[in-house]
């Protein structure tokens, strides 16, 4: 066992410098996470907040897609989270949709909590996602943005939670502007990255406690146990 471990570590070292044709040694895994939602819900601000740690004061409508990467370390492994900040307006995204969903690891649906129309268009985004995704087990999460504008909130949390449960997605409410409101933007993406790394299912919709049945103990078999 020890010998095996040593061997493994030595192999790791020997490969540290090499890399296939021209690419830098791709030591870290890349998780491609796409951010989908209506125009103006705050996708650019969310991704910027996660990757740069600040709120961008002036943003313009995203054309096509913007890539933002951030390297994180999870359980000692270096992982690159590659966020694809997609365009919300139809004319800016129509030829790009297949490219968004190609080899994607996770999908983040974003809606604006102060705009109920953006919430109502979520089903169509989810449908598009279903049509383009090859695997059915790609983790998806739902994020409601702009929760700091408390007086203008139009989407109540219970409605959003019901919707999220229907589609078996976890719901997070956050604000890219004041990230300390509700769920922290950083926490959301890191949770998602953790789940991706460990392949755990995102939703354990019911805790197993609820439907455990206590069986009466079976009659012991007539063999003697030698333990």
């Amino acid at each position, binding site marked *: *066992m020890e010998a095996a471990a040593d061997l493994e570590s030595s192999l790791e070292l020997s490969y540290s410098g090499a890399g296939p044709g021209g690419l830098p040694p791709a030591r870290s895994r890349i998780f491609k996470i796409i951010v989908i939602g209506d125009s103006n819900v705050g996708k650019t601000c969310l991704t910027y907040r996660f990757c740069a740690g600040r709120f961008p004061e002036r943003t313009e409508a995203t054309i096509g897609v913007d890539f933002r990467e951030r390297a994180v370390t999870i359980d000692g492994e270096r992982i690159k989270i590659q966020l694809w900040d997609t365009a919300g307006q139809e004319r800016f995204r129509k030829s790009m949709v297949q490219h968004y969903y190609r080899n994607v690891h996770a999908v983040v649906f974003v809606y604006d909590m102060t705009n109920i129309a953006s919430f109502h268009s979520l089903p169509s985004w989810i449908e598009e996602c279903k049509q383009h995704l090859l695997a059915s087990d790609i983790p998806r999460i739902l994020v409601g943005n702009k929760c700091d504008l408390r007086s203008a909130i139009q989407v109540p949390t219970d409605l959003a939670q019901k919707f999220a449960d229907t589609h078996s997605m976890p719901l997070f409410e956050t604000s890219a502007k004041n990230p300390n409101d509700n769920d922290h933007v950083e926490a959301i993406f890191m949770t998602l990255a953790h789940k991706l790394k460990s392949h755990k299912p995102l939703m354990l919709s019911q805790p197993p406690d609820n439907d455990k049945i206590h069986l009466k103990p079976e009659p012991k078999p007539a063999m003697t146990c030698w333990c």
Partner: protein
Amino acid sequence: MAEAAGSGGGGSWKRHIVRQLQLRDRAQSGRFLDVVQAYTKLLEKSSLLVHFTEKLQAESFDLQAPRSGRETNGSTLEPGLGSPEALQALKIKYQGQIAEMKGVSGELAYRIIELSKLLKAKECKLQEQKTRLASLSGRISELEAEYQQLKGRAEDLGNGNCARKAEYDVLHERYRLREGELRRAAEKEQELIESLVRKKVEAAEHQNKKNERVKQARLSRELKKATKRTVSIDVESDELKPAEVKVPVRELVELEGCEKLWKRPFRSASATSMTLARCVDVFKGLLDFRLKRGNSITSGSEVRYRSMPICLVTCLPSRVSDVQEAHFSEVNAVKFSPSSGVLATGGADSLIRLWNVAGGRLESLQTLEGANGSITSIEFDPSGCQILAAAYNNAAQLWHIGDYKSKETLTGHADKVTAAKFRSTRLQAVTGSRDRTVKEWDLCRGACCRTINVFSYCNDVVCCDNVIVSGHHDKKIRFWDSRGPRCTEVIPVKGKVTSLHISQDQMHLLSCSRDNTLKVIDLKMNNVRQVFRADGFRCGSDWTKAIFSPDKSYVLVGSSDGSLYLWNMESGKLETILSGEHRASVNAVAWCFSGQCVVSVDQAKKVVLWK
């Protein structure tokens, strides 16, 4: 005068003298001629005047005396008529004439008044007309002035209109130009957007390709690692504990025959089992004195289990009997209990569910929890009261069917445990893992007694006799001698091995691999006897399980499109395809020991019972 005339002859002087006299006459009388004339006239006049005066006197006399009317002729001046009657008559006549005259004068006066009235009226009228005329002419001049003014204004307006029209034209022209500019700008905007979007599409493609390349690079590195590993490691490093190594050597010498027997738990259905049991009993006493080896089981005899019930007849499943949603996530493993009609399913949600198969329906009995990772394989022990399950959290766990909490946890692997099987005694287990080791465990103590380095991810492991068979990621099936860590045999296949299944008589081994074939291997000869493949059968994952039917007449496996493929062992041909129920890749299948029914589980949480 006279002198002049002198020269003339006798008659001439006369004439001269006459002439002179005439001249003188003339001169003198001439002067007085006028006067004479005038005098004569005056005389006439005076005579006239006297005449008239006389007349008038007469008249006036007449008048004064008789008041008579005058006779116009006046000639009737009859002075002296003086008779009173005549005077009276004249008076009357003259009075009458006076009255007449008065009347006439009155009439005339009246007429004069009238006429003067008329005249006034006419004068008024005239005045009026004049004033009217004046006013009208005033009006006319006013109107003319106004007309002139209005004309002036009309002209002004006309000019203003012209000016404005000119302005309008200018503006219109500018508007057209601007509109043209706007159109061009909109076109340009469209072009720019399109080009930007094209660039973004290229960028996205590029990024996707880069991601793929990185992934491939990692994969190739890992593969290189794996292949290199095989080469560099010679089988000299021995993980056996020294104690273990030494003691068996010593004792082998002593009790070689029976020890070998003892260490090779037989599960065959042959009659030798009885003999072995007796051997064991015989050596029980001897064994008791032996030094207990490190981790192995020594105390007590082991119970040899009777072989599992032999099934003589299997029915071909043909239709769906029941469908249940078994787990919250993919279902990875399914196994029938050998003793009772209990079915166990294990899923990615870390739960093991027990079901009762009765009357063609699946009833959920119990849920075993306590695993901390998704379940990869399940096995019942031969008595059917314990379950051993392997999980992703690098451990295998043991449950007693009565408890719902795990009785024992076997930790020690460094990566997912892909398979855990009981050895023929239920006190020993073998696990295979992705950390490239196969471990043997002592279940009483829950500790690993031996670790075998297997050089590649182990996807499945089965045990029989004293041989452990493991199927690997590097497309090889390896046989291990359970006494020493030696690899006795290596059988290569064409794809990653996803599952192994030993037939009940322990003669044949069925392997399923990623090149979409199933191979039947003869365990005695260690060669491949049969190969099964079919169109449309695709191995869905790295852990797809294929099984023999209990009487070894059929071979069953689930495909990635959700259908089950069944081959006939004797003919080697595809017997039937069961499809229509599963919508996702089928992970595992299990055949009940009586041969009556088959259960399959898939990635979409379903468990299906076929009869």
